[in-house]
C-alpha cells in the first residue's frame, strides 16, 4: 500500500495532529516502512485460524446492575482546562 501525502494528511486530521510540510515526507516514508513490516504477516497461511478479537481466552464478563458512588462534580471537573459552574466548557461547536 502506497502512503502518499494525502493519506498522511487525512490520518493526521483524523488524529487531530498538526503536521508541518517537511514532516509530511518524513512520515510518509516512516509509515510506508511500518506497513511494509506489518505486511510480512500476510505471508502466513491463516486459512485454518479463526479471527481473534480479544487476546485473552475469557468471555461474557458482566457486572450486576447495582449503582456505585459517582464522583462529585467538583472532583470530576478538577482537571478540566476550562469549566463553567459544574459544566465542562469547550470552544463552541455546532455541527
Amino acid at each position: 500500500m502506497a502512503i502518499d501525502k494525502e493519506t498522511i494528511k487525512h490520518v493526521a486530521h483524523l488524529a487531530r495532529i498538526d503536521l508541518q510540510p517537511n514532516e509530511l515526507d518524513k512520515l510518509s516514508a516512516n509509515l510506508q516502512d511500518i506497513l511494509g513490516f506489518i505486511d510480512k504477516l500476510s505471508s502466513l497461511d491463516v486459512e485454518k485460524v479463526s479471527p481473534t478479537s480479544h487476546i485473552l481466552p475469557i468471555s461474557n464478563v458482566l457486572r450486576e446492575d447495582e449503582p456505585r458512588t459517582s464522583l462529585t462534580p467538583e472532583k470530576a471537573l478538577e482537571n478540566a482546562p476550562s469549566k463553567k459552574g459544574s459544566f465542562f466548557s469547550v470552544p463552541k461547536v455546532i455541527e
Partner: protein
Amino acid sequence: MIYETVIGLEVHLQLNTKTKAFCGCSTDFGKPPNSNVCPVCLGFPGSLPVYNRQALNSAIKLALAFNCRIQEHTKFDRKNYFYPDLPKNYQISQYDLPLSRNGYLDIFTNGSPKRIGITRIHLEEDAGKLIHEDAVSLVDFNRTGIPLMEIVSEPDLSHPQEAFDYLTNLKNIIEYLDISDCDMEKGSLRCDANISLRPAGVKELGVKTELKNMNSFKGVKDALTFEVERQTKILEAKETMVQETRLWDVEQGITVTMRTKEGAKDYRYFPDPDLTVFVIGKELIEPVKATLPELPYDKMQRLMKTYALTEYDAKILVASKKDAEFAEVCMQEYPGKDKKEIANWLIGPLMAEANLRKEQLHTLKLDRKELINLIGFVQRQEISHLSAKTVLTQMLDTGKSAQALIKEGNLEQISNTDALAQVIETVINENAKSVGDFKAGKVNALMYLVGQVMKKSSGKANPKVVGDLIKQRLS
C-alpha cells in the same frame, strides 16, 4: 411519473437500567450536571469498562420480541470520532458482529397487517449533552454511557403513515417489555429516517436522504411527508438528487441541509480490547425467553378470537398492557355471553372518563363488580343508557354503588306506557312540524321526537318503548 417511496428507520432506545452500560453510575434523569460520572464514563486513562448484565438481558429480550436471530458470537467495537460530548473520543458500539440480525415486526397499518424487516439490533452507549452558549459550549456527561439499543429497519416502509404506525407499534412492544421509558421528550427514544424515491416498478433504490432532528412520531411523519414532496419535485424537474443529511425544522415545517465537512466520516471501527467477547448461548437466552410477556400483536389477535371483539376494539385495548389486562378481567367476570356488551363500555364511556381524568382504565377508582352491576341495569332495561353514563361518572366521583346512585337520582327507567303517554302527547302537540315530517316518511323526525321525550323525562324514559308508542300514536 408515479414514484414509490422507500423508507427505513433507525431507532435509538435508552434502556431503563439503574446504572450505565459500562460503569456503576446512576442513570437518573435530571440530576445536577456532571454528578453521575466516574473515571470510566469520563474516559480517564486506565479505567476499565464492564458491561451491565441487566442491559444485556434487556437487549436479548428486545431481540427476541423483534424475532431477530441472536448471534452466538458478539463483541464491542470502537467507533472513533472527535466531538466534545464524547470524552473517550470513541463510542463503544457494535460493527460487524452485532447482537442480533434478521428480525421482523408485524404491524397493522391502513387496516391490514404488514411485515417490516429488522436488519439488526445492536448495543451501544449514549453520548453526553451539549448546551450551546454565545461563545462556548457546555458539556454535561451525566448521559454519557447510558446503555442504548439501535434498531435498524429494512427499507420496507412505503409511506410516512406507515413509518408512524411502525414507530407506534415498536413503542407499544417496548412498553410491554418494560425495558425503556420510550419518552421522546426526554430523549429515551430517538428516531432517524432514510428516505428515497424510485419510479414505480423499478428495483434499484434512488438516492437517499437521511433525516434527523425529529422529536416526536408526528415529527417523523411530517418530515417524511415533506421529503416525499421535495424529492418528487426534484425528480420531476429531472434534476439530480444529492445524497445528504437533512435536519427537520419543526417551526417552519421543512427539512434543511446539514452541512458536514467532506470525508469527515471515517470511523475506523476496531474491536474494543477493553471488553471481552460474548458468547450468547441457551443459558443466557432461555431465562429471558421465559420472562417475555404476550406481545401486543398476539394479544390483539387473541382478544379478537376469545371475546369476539373487532380489530378496532382490540387495537384500542392493547395500546396499553395494563389496560388490556384490566379489560380482559372485566370481560371474564362479565356474566353475559356477549362480551362486546362490556367491551363497548370499556372502550367508550369508561375510556372517555379516563382521558378526561388524565388516567388510564386500570388506574380509575372503579370496582369492576360495580361496573358489571351497572351494565346489568341497562341490559335489563331498568335504566336508560344515557342515565347509566351519568351514573358511571358519579360512581367514579363518589365511589358509591350503581344501585345507590340510581336510587338517589331516581333514575329507574320508565317503560310504563301510561306514564309515558302523557309526555308523548305534550311532545306531539309542541312539535307539529316534526310530526308532519314523520308522517311524510322522514325517519329522522322520529328520532327527534324520541329525543324530546327523553329530555322531558330527564333521560329516564325507555327510548325503545317511546319510539314504539309514538309510531303507534301517529299511525
